[in-house]
């Protein structure tokens, strides 16, 4: 049962000055709150580990961490239903974990091992799980968007009642194919929710230097697609907006756009010198808006003990260690894999 307390949380936190803004309905019950917390923490710890493994040379190539943005995908996933499909860009580790993919298999893929989701052939940017309805993992900015519309087309065609959540960045939002996708999905009323993860930068370019117009949420206006700007650092705002959008799409009314205002703490990829923003900008978001810290404080208000929180933390840390040990103990793919999976 969900705890239907309509609450306007605008709590000033004495110690950190952090404040959870925004009104929301349906503050979930304790159990679910803990589950949300666990999922965000799992992504955070997983990504920290991936960063470490990259530094040690166990992960190569590009590696884009999701740290800071956890509330978006965990929030969306928590209000979706089993069978809804997900597609995103290369910043995909969080999405995979939130879809229920096994951290062991994800880490093994990051390290290029045979036990990885793509047998080590895809790597960080290219991972898939048909079983979990996760359709990648795409390295070409914007290319996942029409594919997401195609997944929605298939949901509609089969009338299976599912929606495709199509994630894209604030940088991707300027690709032409995004507007071709908006038009087709609106024209044919396809069940797709476009989740724009506006983390303020596409690589080193801020949104204001790349995007004309005031709001990315309004980019679908000409096609009649409703859009909402959402505080993506607050998992409850994400859930509220997500419910609304998914409901709309599921009812056959067509696409919906959610602009999640979020922030990435780490560099664009591992080799980002980060000269385009100041350290204090990053620190301010971290200290005042961190999605995990915010939820932690709410849990504390709900009388979850520090011991309990510590236990959760160490449980997750050990899950992540298990995943990385599993990955590093796995073999490299067999040579013959080079020539498989090109044709069926």
């Amino acid at each position, binding site marked *: 049962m969900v705890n239907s307390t309509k609450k306007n949380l605008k709590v000033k936190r004495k110690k950190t000055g952090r404040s959870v803004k925004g009104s929301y309905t349906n503050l979930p019950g304790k159990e679910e709150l803990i589950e949300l917390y666990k999922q965000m923490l799992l992504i955070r710890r997983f990504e*920290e580990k991936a*960063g*470490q493994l*990259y*530094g*040690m*040379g166990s992960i*190569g*190539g*590009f590696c884009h961490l999701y740290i800071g943005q956890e509330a978006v995908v965990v929030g969306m996933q928590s209000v979706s239903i089993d069978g809804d499909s997900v597609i995103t860009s290369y910043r995909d580790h969080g999405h995979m974990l939130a879809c229920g993919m096994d951290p062991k298999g994800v880490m093994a*893929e990051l390290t*290029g*091992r045979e036990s990885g989701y*793509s047998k*080590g*052939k*895809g*790597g*960080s*940017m*290219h991972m898939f799980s048909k079983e979990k309805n996760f359709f990648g993992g*795409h*390295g*070409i*900015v*914007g290319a996942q968007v029409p594919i997401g519309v195609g997944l929605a087309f298939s949901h509609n065609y089969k009338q299976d009642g599912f929606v495709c959540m199509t994630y894209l960045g604030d*940088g*991707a939002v*300027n*690709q*032409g194919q995004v507007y071709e996708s908006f038009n087709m999905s609106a024209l044919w009323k396809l069940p797709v929710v476009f989740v724009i993860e506006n983390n303020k930068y*596409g*690589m*080193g*370019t801020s949104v204001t*230097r*790349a*995007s004309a117009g005031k709001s990315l949420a309004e980019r679908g206006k000409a096609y009649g697609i409703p859009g909402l700007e959402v505080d993506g650092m607050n998992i409850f705002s994400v859930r509220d907006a997500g419910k609304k959008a998914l409901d709309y799409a599921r009812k056959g009314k067509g696409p919906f756009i959610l602009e999640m205002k979020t922030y990435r*703490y780490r*560099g664009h990829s*591992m*080799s*980002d*010198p*980060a*000269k*385009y923003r100041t*350290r204090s900008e990053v620190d301010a978001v*971290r200290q005042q808006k961190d999605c995990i810290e915010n939820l932690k404080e709410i849990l504390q208000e709900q009388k979850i003990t520090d011991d309990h929180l510590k236990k959760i933390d160490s449980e997750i840390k050990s899950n992540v260690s298990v995943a990385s040990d599993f990955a590093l103990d796995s073999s*490299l*793919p067999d*040579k013959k*894999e*080079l*020539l498989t999976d*090109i044709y069926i």
Partner: protein
Amino acid sequence: MSTIKMPALSPTMTVGTISKWLVSEGDEVVSGDILAEIETDKATMELEAIDDGEVSEILVQAGVQNISVGTPIIVIGNENNSEKISNVVKQVQSGNEKIETVNSDKITISVREALRDAMAEEMRLDEDIFIMGEEVAEYQGAYKVTQGLLEEFGEKRVIDTPITEQGFAGLGVGAAFGGLKPIIEFMTFNFSMQAIDQIINSAAKTLYMSGGQMGCPIVFRGPNGAASRVAAQHSQCFASWYAHCPGLKVVSPWSASDAKGLLKASIRDPNPVIFLENELLYGEKFEIDNENEIVPIGVGNIVSEGNDVTVVAFSIMVGKALNATKKLAENGISVEVIDLRTIKPLDIDLIIESVKKTNRLVICEEGFPFSGIGSEIIAQVQEYAFDWLDAPIKRVTGQDVPLPYAENLEKLALPQEEDIVNAVLHILNEVK
């Protein structure tokens, strides 16, 4: 308690330099604090603490050059064997210091600098030249090829774009029709696929379709081919794609002086030029003889003379071919290496001349074999020099598979020095 090692901070980094420590021994740090600034092959990066604790020992002082990835650099928390670690580090450092020797007589520049200098020099001469692309201005280029250009030429001529390849490629074509001379940078050529319609249908064909009225003086440039484990969607050679189409010139240099001379020639050329660079070559340094030389498009170069076999290569494969040549020389085999430099127009005369001397030919390219540059060369050689061949022509190419991510598979998928050595040995045995 943890020992932090020199991290790999980019796909291609093997050594780094700590430019500054931001903590001292005895400081308390928490996860997320910046410990040091580290200079990598591309940029200066910040190293963050991953755990909380006290800095118990700094193992490598700031300023020590070329510390290998994986070398312990700092200990956070107490660690009993830290003394041992410091000793190891000292040894590593003294080993590394010797590496830094530079030949002082000739000018040595990296391919990255050569490309930047070519653009800067041409831009100084011609106001109509501008450069446009993702992250070319404020960020100084995703691979730092446009470093310093914004500062010198300002934002009118050095322009950051949104991520809209088809848009800015088409815009470039229009600007060229309008009398300007655009240099369009693709962050990598993989992303040119978003724009390929504008390149082929608009840039390449309009001169012909307009009965010669409307030329398109534009350069599309950027890194091409595999880099370092960036996997299938970011690792592809587009030489044969673009060479296939009439109206385009396709250039792909290996050395720094050719990179510079050919980029200058490409900017001056009145036609659309596809200029294929290679990320792994950007940091490579070459001696340069004549800084101001323009290298004409369409002219190959014999980079090593020999009599037994001709090996044709371009871009990064030239270096591999030269290394293979050295190994083969140890076995008394004399290889002539031709660096194509330009793919289209192809310097077929140079290849034919060499084949008439050696009677054997191996062609190397990183791209896929099917309909590759090698296929085209084979067709032309059999047409013009069939009677001079003593053995079937052999190709050394990338495997006909999307590039895998796993380290072992990537190596197998890409053509290696060994493969060239084997190919040469193979066609020499063929005649016995």
